[in-house]
């Protein structure tokens, strides 16, 4: 399923980040994607199921949450999972395209990576 990917702040993300980015609270509140319930029905997924999000720049597995967002959109809070999906091109501004990236989403059985697993994958993968 194709969506336009948005990212931004949420209160839960802010609260959890202040507890610590390696905490379970942070994982539970940031490794998530908010989707429209109608889109979730079409995909056959329910609240809490895992979704793999892919863009030109990478992929991330996150949990899906119901939201009143538009059907063609998905929202992932700012954080390391959203940043797996965003490119580093800034068009000479310094600012990457953090909002409005096209993404493909599908249901998955893969696990949501912890912060340490994600760091290890990126750090090992660069070699």
């Amino acid at each position, binding site marked *: 399923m194709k969506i*336009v990917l*948005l*990212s*931004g*702040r*949420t*209160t839960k993300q*802010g*609260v*959890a980040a*202040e*507890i*610590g*980015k*390696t*905490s379970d609270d942070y994982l539970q509140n940031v490794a998530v994607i908010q989707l429209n319930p109608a889109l979730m029905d079409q995909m056959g997924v329910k609240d809490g199921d895992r979704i793999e999000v892919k863009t030109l*720049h*990478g992929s991330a597995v996150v949990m899906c949450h119901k939201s*009143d*967002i*538009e059907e063609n*959109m998905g*929202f992932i809070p*700012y*954080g*390391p999972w959203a*940043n*797996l999906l*965003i*490119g*580093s*091109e*800034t*068009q*000479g*501004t*310094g*600012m*990457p*395209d*953090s*909002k*409005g990236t096209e993404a493909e989403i599908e249901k998955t059985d893969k696990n949501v990576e912890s*912060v*340490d697993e994600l*760091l290890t994958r*990126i*750090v090992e*993968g*660069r070699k």
Partner: protein
Amino acid sequence: MIHENVVCPFCGCLCDDIVVTTEDNQITDVKNACAISKSKFLNHHVNMLESALVDGKEVSMDEAVDRATEILSSADNPLIYGLSSTECEAQRHAIHLAELLGATIDQTASVCHGPTILGTQDAGCVKCTLGEVKNRADLIIYWGCNPAEAHIRHFRRYSVFPEGLFRKGRNEREVVVVDVRATASARIATTFVKTEPGTDFENISLMRAYLKGKRDSLPDELRDLVEKMKTCTFGIIFFGLGLTMSKGKHLNVDAALRLVRDLNEFTKFSITPMRGHYNVTGAGSTMAWVTGYPFSVNFALGYPLSNPGEFSAVDVLARKECDAALIIASDPAANFPAEAWKHLADIPTIVMDPKVSLTTRIAKVSIPVATAGIEAEGTAYRMDGIPLRLKKIVQTSRPSDAAVLTKMIEKVRA
């Protein structure tokens, strides 16, 4: 002990009415704060960096600072990045260190409101304080931002709900939210205008054309909005990363700033960016008054040059141009595209932070510092450019960012 009128070191609202209770040097209660502020005060000691580390091994503070200075001094093109979650004195020392090292220095605005700075350099900005908004504004527009989640007390303290001199409450103000999705903020709006992603430049340009008499192609909702803007007594646009991070970036902001300038032909209108980190406005101000440029500055030639896209941190890292990095009060491994931050794992990276972060996980040197605004005092700038004094309410043996940077400067000069 009860500490009154404490300034919150979380977001650009810089709420200065927080009441913090401490017992035995521990924060036990926080009043007037939003959920995130409360979490910051009450959890400031959780997940702390317990000691200085070099290559994952515990070392003394002096050893860590020595090693950090050696790394930075021997690098050809070091990068200094962060600054927005610390106070202005530390920012000033970081710039001094960058000058001595011939380094590139950038602050977190480059991945939030950097495009706002570029737009402002081009178009200028009709500004006012949040106090003027509270006292006078009868039309409040939030465009591409979601204060209900990110600047939680903004409505209550500065815009929608407070009792001002000439506006006594919610019913004397009209509130409009413009966004691509119906956010929590849209629920408190009188009017919610939904736009398509990536259409801000087009929409704002059509609104400007309408003001200049070209009235054919503006959608009804935007026409109604322009009419409200023209006929209000005092209007304000608060805008967020919806404009700066989506297609168009600085051009979106440029258009919005020009729209506000045009509106002043009809009435009084201002515009203010919703700055995220509590002292990102201060980081821009400090860099501007010290170097002449607010972000993305390079000292390789011995004098400051600025060029976003060339000296901005994401670009420097993505092109692998730096051979060492000093990260101050920031977490690029959490906040940058993975394509960019992974270079930090290839080079010796030094992190100064009170807490364990994703970047400390990949750093060669980690230096635990006092949390500015809780364990160290200093100055921070509110989103409207008003400087406020951060308080020290908890004693700590950890040095402040400013103290560590002063030591580094002494060692580099020695």
